[in-house]
């Protein structure tokens, strides 16, 4: 596949690795922000090919992992008690709620459906005019345009039976929260390429200037990741800090203005709770008041007891980069992708799932 396979060329990867080894003279700690990048690093064995001095810490960039538990409980409640057609991306289904996951709700007879696109949920609402359809709109900035677009499509069609349960989070405030953590060890970031495809680069300039650390916007294929790491190491070794764009084939400095317009029509910036991390000011999107009829939280009244986290799960520390997945006492023991204790073991972007699927014998 063009624009994919050529970025997996082993000979070029070797050249990049040699250059990284040549230029690394001291210990550096980098965080790749996006869970897709974490999987790319682990799956392709890049972590064990990097110089020992480079420590890659895995960031909070997995929207499924940071979706607050009480929203999962609400989704389960909507599916079981309000008898809506609850649609979701596949990753959300096995994430454990306080009592049960959406998959377990489905097993009990709830109408829970996995969709590829939020636009399909609108088609479903059109095809079932007598049923309420709710799409669990989870995502970072990358997914916000598609989730917002589904609302605009429903509005255009005059649908009264479609709403979204929004769990939209924003990357730059989370990066800032990581930097400001008193235990922070991160010296540079690989920023999330597809988030920047939508939002552009302007939000990252102030972070570079304020915290004096390099940020390199990077792609997801092995060569992209290696080039991103090399660009970062070059800055660190020279003692400079700049914003660079490794992923310029899809990331423009201004991002995608059309997508930003659609987001603005449907969402407004709001404070957001991140599972395992806590409340981060202005770190998410909520449905605008004028779009309230498409907001499942306002459309259905759901009052549930406070959510209960599993006491054995250290997802919060993993998401902040303070612990590696295999440093958890439950990793690959009580907690596996089939029986997950926390969200990072479920999601295709979760760090725990990456370590589990591609684990070494000593993990």
């Amino acid at each position, binding site marked *: 596949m063009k624009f994919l396979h050529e970025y997996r060329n082993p000979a070029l990867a070797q050249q990049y690795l040699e250059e990284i080894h040549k230029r690394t003279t001291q210990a550096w700690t980098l965080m790749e922000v996006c869970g897709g990048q974490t999987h790319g690093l682990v799956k392709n064995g890049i972590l064990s090919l990097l110089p020992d001095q480079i420590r890659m810490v895995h960031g909070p960039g997995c929207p499924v992992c940071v979706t607050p538990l009480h929203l999962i409980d609400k989704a389960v409640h909507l599916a079981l008690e309000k008898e809506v057609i609850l649609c979701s991306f596949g990753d959300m289904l096995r994430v454990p709620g306080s009592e049960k996951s959406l998959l377990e709700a489905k097993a009990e007879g709830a109408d829970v459906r996995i969709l590829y696109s939020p636009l399909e949920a609108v088609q479903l609402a059109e095809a079932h005019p007598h049923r309420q359809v709710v799409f669990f709109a989870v995502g970072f900035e*990358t997914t916000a345009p598609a989730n917002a677009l589904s609302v605009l499509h429903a509005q255009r069609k005059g649908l009264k039976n479609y709403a979204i349960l929004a769990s939209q989070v924003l990357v730059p405030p989370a990066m800032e929260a990581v930097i400001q953590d008193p235990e922070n060890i991160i010296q540079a970031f690989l920023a999330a390429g597809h988030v920047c495809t939508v939002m552009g680069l302007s939000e990252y300039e102030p972070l570079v200037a304020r915290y004096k650390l390099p940020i390199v916007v990077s792609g997801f294929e092995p060569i992209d990741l290696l080039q991103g790491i090399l660009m970062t190491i070059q800055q660190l070794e020279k003692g*400079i800090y700049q914003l660079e764009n490794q992923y310029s*084939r899809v990331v423009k400095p201004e991002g*995608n203005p*059309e*997508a930003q317009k659609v987001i603005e029509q449907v969402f407004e910036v709001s404070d957001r709770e991140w599972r395992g991390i806590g409340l981060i000011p202005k770190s998410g999107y909520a449905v605008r008041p004028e779009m309230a009829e498409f907001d499942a939280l306002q459309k259905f009244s759901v009052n549930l007891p406070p959510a209960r986290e599993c006491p054995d799960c250290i997802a919060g520390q993993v998401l902040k980069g303070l612990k590696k997945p295999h440093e958890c006492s439950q990793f690959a023991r009580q907690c596996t992708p089939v029986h997950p204790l926390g969200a990072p073991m479920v999601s295709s972007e979760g760090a725990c799932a990456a370590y589990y699927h591609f684990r070494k014998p000593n993990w």
Partner: protein
Amino acid sequence: MCLAIPGKIESIEHQYGGLVRMAKVVFGGIRKEASLEMVPQAKAGDYVLVHVGVAISIIDEEEAQKTFSYLEGIGELEELMPPKEHRGQD
């Protein structure tokens, strides 16, 4: 979640009374429908990055080549411009 795949636009049709452009996009032999609402300038034959059924960027073929020439470039660049002590922004 943020997985987005590059594919080639095979054909474009208008839906919703001409308001929305939808494309058939080919991903290594697999065809999927994608909305072109976020990339109004995209045309048949272009490669677009598709995320959950929505094209979010047109792939820039010229920029795409830079990754392959980057390693040659950094050696030459450093000969021209020796590293300064500090080039960050305050």
